[in-house]
């Protein structure tokens, strides 16, 4: 049963990716912005335009271009970037770890902050503290991540410059690691100087991404916890004499966390999407920053590669959340 569901999801994922590939391929060729027109200086003639179109393989029909590209993708060749002249797959994979590390760090911060807000709000419900937390939550939610980024830059980059404003790592510390998961690998290699430097660079963009998500998590988890606190089994726990902290943490939280988990899964995909703007703001060398450059330069193969990878990530995250939900929810597990 479980295996069949898994296989169905994988098949759905493949169809989704194919759909995304078709849409992206078509849309970026339909929307205004011809990469060759952008590249040619005004003195160029029609023959020069034709020559460069042929050079970049843009002289063929769109379906023909698509099938050539798709044929390459199936064999692991995502084409060559127009701007960097590097293989797209290599470029995208080299930047993916930076974005994943940033997203995961933002998620961890969001879960911790949101969890703390929810637990404190539940513990101190119907008090002024809960009211203050609700106000703070509302503020965190209503300000978009890039504005949080600007606020953080002003506070911790300029007024009290304790964190680094731009980049992923200090130029004099760029490691020669086996992978691009610098944060992870620096721990394994006991390079704590590098780890600290990475964290110092990542903290502000991660925080900017995390604050709105933390507010959402806090709000939903608190609501869910408050509802759970009225259930019979929680009341029973109280009558047994357990402390309020024990009731919240050990009894109510496990059930209350399920809807939040689904939300986190959905929001994580949005969070990865949010890295596009935040990475740009902090000049963080991830996939999002590269995506903006690719769009500005109309680097069609690179845009296709990045979007396809983002789509793959989104579907994988959703798949993982579904599976985790099934594992944690006994009703689904035994269905």
């Amino acid at each position, binding site marked *: 049963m479980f295996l069949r569901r898994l296989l169905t999801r994988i098949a759905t994922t493949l169809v989704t990716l194919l759909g995304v590939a078709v849409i992206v391929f078509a849309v970026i060729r339909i929307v205004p912005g011809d990469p060759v027109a*952008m590249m040619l*200086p005004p003195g160029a003639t029609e023959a020069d335009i034709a020559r460069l179109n042929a050079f970049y393989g843009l002289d063929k029909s769109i379906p023909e271009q698509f099938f050539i590209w798709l044929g390459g993708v199936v064999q692991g060749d995502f084409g060559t970037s127009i701007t960097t002249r590097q293989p797209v797959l290599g470029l995208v994979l080299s930047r993916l770890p930076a974005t994943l590390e940033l997203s995961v760090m933002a998620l961890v911060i969001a879960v911790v902050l949101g969890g703390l807000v929810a637990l404190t709000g539940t513990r101190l419900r119907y008090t002024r503290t809960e009211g203050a937390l609700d106000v703070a939550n509302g503020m965190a939610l209503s300000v978009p991540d890039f504005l949080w980024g600007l606020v953080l830059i002003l506070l911790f980059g300029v007024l009290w410059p304790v964190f680094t404003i*731009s980049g992923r790592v200090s130029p004099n510390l760029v490691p020669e690691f086996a992978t691009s998961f610098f944060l992870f690998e620096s721990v394994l290699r006991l390079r704590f100087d590098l780890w600290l430097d990475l964290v110092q660079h990542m903290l502000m963009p991660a925080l900017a991404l995390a604050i709105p998500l933390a507010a959402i998590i806090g709000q939903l988890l608190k609501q869910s916890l408050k509802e759970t606190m009225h259930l019979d089994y929680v009341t029973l726990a109280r009558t047994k004499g357990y402390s309020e902290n024990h009731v919240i943490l050990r009894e109510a939280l496990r059930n209350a966390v399920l809807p939040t988990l689904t939300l986190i899964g959905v929001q994580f995909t949005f969070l990865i999407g949010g890295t596009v703007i935040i990475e740009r703001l902090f000049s963080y060398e991830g996939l999002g920053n590269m995506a903006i450059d690719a769009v500005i330069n109309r680097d069609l193969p690179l845009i296709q590669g990045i979007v396809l990878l983002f789509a793959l990530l989104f579907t994988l995250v959703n798949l993982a959340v579904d599976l985790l939900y099934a594992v944690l929810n006994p009703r689904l597990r035994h269905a």
Partner: protein
Amino acid sequence: MKLSRRSLLKMSAASVTLSVALPAFAQAIDELVIAYNVNLPSWDPTVGPSAVNPTIQGLYQSVFDQFILQQPDLTPAPGLLTDWGWNEDRTQVWMDVREGVKWHDGSDFTAEDVAWSLARAADPATGNPIQFVWGTLANHRVEGNRVIADVAQFDPTIFKWMYFLTGYVLPKAYYERVGAEGFEAAPIGTGPYKVEQYERNAFVRLRANADYWNGVPEFETVTIRFVTDAASRVAEVESGRSHVTLEIPYEEYDRLRERSGLGGVATPVSDIAMIFFNDIDVMLDENVRRAAVHAVDKQLIIDRLLSGYGVAISTLETPEYAAFDPSIEVAYDPDLARELLAASGFSTDNPVRFTIQTTRGFKPKDYEMIQAIVGMWRRVGIEAEIEVYEVARHYELRAADQLAPAAFYNWGNSVGDPTTSTGFAMFGPSPHSVWDSPDLIERIGPLWAEPDEATRIQGWKDVSRYIAEHAYVLPLLQYVQPILHASGVTVVPHASGALLPHLMTRA
């Protein structure tokens, strides 16, 4: 003084905070850090979109030399080529190559490198976007220390292109040995700096070339961080993490340059703002065009929207360009604009209507400028509807000759020749021109191949006057580039807009 544990902790915290918060501009600059406004996608300065991106040229010129050196005022000077010219009947060009120059790997720079670089640029298979210019030379050969090429098609500006886009000398032997990928991974040139470390989308660290033929740069190490967001660039300099930055809002520039430890230079660069008129609809009426031109108070736009940073222009030639003629002036005269419109039956009660296209945020205050112009036009009897588009759309529409009757654009011409400003912008047969009337084509046509330089430049001045008289285009202003820097560094601005670390010295 009694020291308690609490007070000791307080003092420690304060000293840590102070040491962290002390901006670098308050300290002596050892390693120069520049917050640059664009990423560097590729190290090959002759291929792809980055090869024709004017802002990236400053990075390329730090590592590679061009065939001919361009000085900060745009004039040429001996560089890797020490002398150059045509033969008597202009069927050949000759170029004398500097001796004693070394590539960054220590090998000798030779005339072979120049000949190979020219031939490579002319080869359509390399994908050089300017191949159509380099293709006017053929059969490149080396005779001792001189490179000779046959003129396939006479182009009086060919030597100007040698200090313009894609006009770089690359190392023949090294490139052939390592290939395109190897060159991307470890580029070498003859320029003032060597590439020490490069992280795509992050930074490039440069080390001074101790053998540089034109003098060793003052800063031994330069780190150029790619900080594409203007607010972050401002923060970089304000916090002291970077010493120099460019392309920041004028308001921020004014706010910060007065601050202790910071300074700034703002000089006109070779970029202009203009409004193309398309030879369609109401724009075929000369009265409408002339009214549209006379109704615009350019100085007011500069003062109010650009904080005074700009130079009003009447032609597509700026004062630094070879064919600039200060006697051509198109005055702001709203009364004349009203008269002209009245002659064509238009007034504020019966306005002439057309669409004007503009980018929004592509250049400083582009949309706001057009809003202001539309307001000025309204007062004389022109009702223009603003349509916002992306610059990529502009290129596409311009190539297809489908722009609206009026379209805002910014034109760069860091070589300063009239062919690459008025010429390409206004010559009908060019797929990128907008006004295509035969009278203008007739006047411009012969200038492309005019061999006598004085006659050629005078010819372009005459064309500029003719264009101004008939209002075939609306030149607005020359941009001013603000460069913000720590007071410990002196920045020499380049009129091309290129930010060149080798021109920077300690103050």
